[in-house]
């Protein structure tokens, strides 16, 4: 619990973070930037879980545990995505979205 800051302010921040992530996912043209946007979305959920647990239901620690698992899974996800991107880079020497459009419609 942070004195002087209510849950509304923090939830507003996480919602903004979430939508920045969604916006970035749609508009970015670099695969690494898209990956960073996904991380923003996941981190918004992590903060959400911790804050909801701390402010609303402090007696049970379900949200905090959940957030730890999300962080671990997000790391695995990023590692896998980066490894696939590296493999792609070896073949086409580019990480731009416009270069991975051989399959369409």
């Amino acid at each position: 619990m942070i004195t002087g800051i209510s849950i509304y302010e923090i939830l507003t921040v996480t919602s903004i973070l979430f939508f920045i992530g969604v916006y970035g996912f749609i508009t970015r043209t670099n695969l690494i930037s898209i990956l960073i946007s996904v991380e923003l979305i996941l981190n918004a959920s992590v903060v959400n879980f911790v804050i909801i647990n701390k402010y609303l239901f402090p007696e049970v620690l379900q949200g905090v545990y959940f957030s730890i698992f999300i962080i671990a899974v997000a790391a695995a996800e990023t590692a896998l995505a980066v490894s696939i991107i590296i493999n792609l880079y070896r073949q086409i020497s580019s990480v731009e979205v416009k270069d991975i459009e051989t399959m369409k419609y």
Partner: protein
Amino acid sequence: MNYSSFLLMRQEIALLAIILLLVIAEIFIPRDRKVSIIHLTIFLFGIHTIVGFFHMDENNLFGGMFRTNHLIHFFKNILNIGVLILLLQSADWIQEKILNQNKGSEFFILMFSSLLGIYFMISAGDFLMFYLGLELSTLPVAALAAYETMKRISSESGIKLILSSALASGVSLFGISMLYATTGSIYFNEIVQIISSTNLTLLGMVLLFAGISFKISLVPFHFWTADVYEGAPISVASYLSVISKGAAVFILMVLLFTVLKPLAHIWENIIYMIAIATMFIGNLFALRQQNMKRFLAFSSIAQAGFILLGLIGQSPTGTATVVYFVLIYIFSNLAAFGVVQAISLQTGKENIKDYEGLYRTNPNLSLVLMLALFSLAGIPPVAGFFGKFFLFTAAASKGFFLLVFLAVVNVTISLYYYLLVIRAMFLRKGDNPIPFFKNKIYMRIGLVITVLGILLLGIYSPLYDYIYELSSTFN
């Protein structure tokens, strides 16, 4: 601590043991005899499938995080049979293309890890287990999609799958956090007592639904499907379209019928709209496909739309029909993908145009593909007809007549494009038809099992009664 209660996780423990055995086998089997890993895997997984049919009790473990009942157990067995057929069909591909790159056993390890995630996902009792199962079932498949590291389209499909699935899981996590905010719990049986239709709950439900719809490839979230299916190896595409989709349908059904049951009047509308959109878009886009894998991808999107008709009924009949349809869908779709894989492995051809005159050169394969497409289209003597018929009955018995009418219109559209492929095989004389070839033993066994399933499942009525009995205890 009573260790015998761990027997409820028998399937998971057995599968984990197989994965570990494969890791050890990979270390100790010398490089020139790696072929034996394929035989070992199929043997071990065959035993696992047979042992799975033994009786299992119904109970909860870990304070309700993990639960199992007869329907869940039965569904795991269905998935086991599907994966076994898939292994039989992909054995030749692994032996010819993958083993010489010395990465044969990783294929099995990744696929079994994904299956393990699916097990945990469908028997999840809280959102943490559900989320972990969902991720464990998705991430290895993304690695598998990018498995042919020498091919550019394989890497492309892998990156498309991993990025979109990461977005989907992020969105559904945000939804889960909102459900947690309004109910104060992540356990299914605690949430269902408190949940009510406030605005925040509804937003959470919609976001969660979006995340799962991605796995089933329902329409606003279907854009990854065709690209990933085309680029990925065929066995991975069929895993995605059959096993992964079937499991996601099951967990969606569990969530809607148990956790979100108090919000039924709202999610019924969502499913109504999405079912119509999915059927029409899937079918209309399938009409213009030239590549067989893309064609099957859009056909599987349309089939997912039909499955939603069973969910909207929200009754024991609905549950039974969905499970029954998924069972039939596994056999029909695996038969279609099996034939595509056999032809692609021998000749490298994947376009519908290349299939012209297939009946003259390879009559058996074209008969299998014809049966599979008839079953997907729902033509009476084969099993697919009964699956669709029960789905439509379940929706019509709840009064959704317009929806059933639109579904029947869609069945007619789908009949057209399935018959296009059959016409190419039987009536056209191609300039350059695929030469005759003989399949190896594993592929033949895999195709024979699927054909038996397509022919017998529809006629053998005690099976439906059995599923109905299981699902009445479930609701």
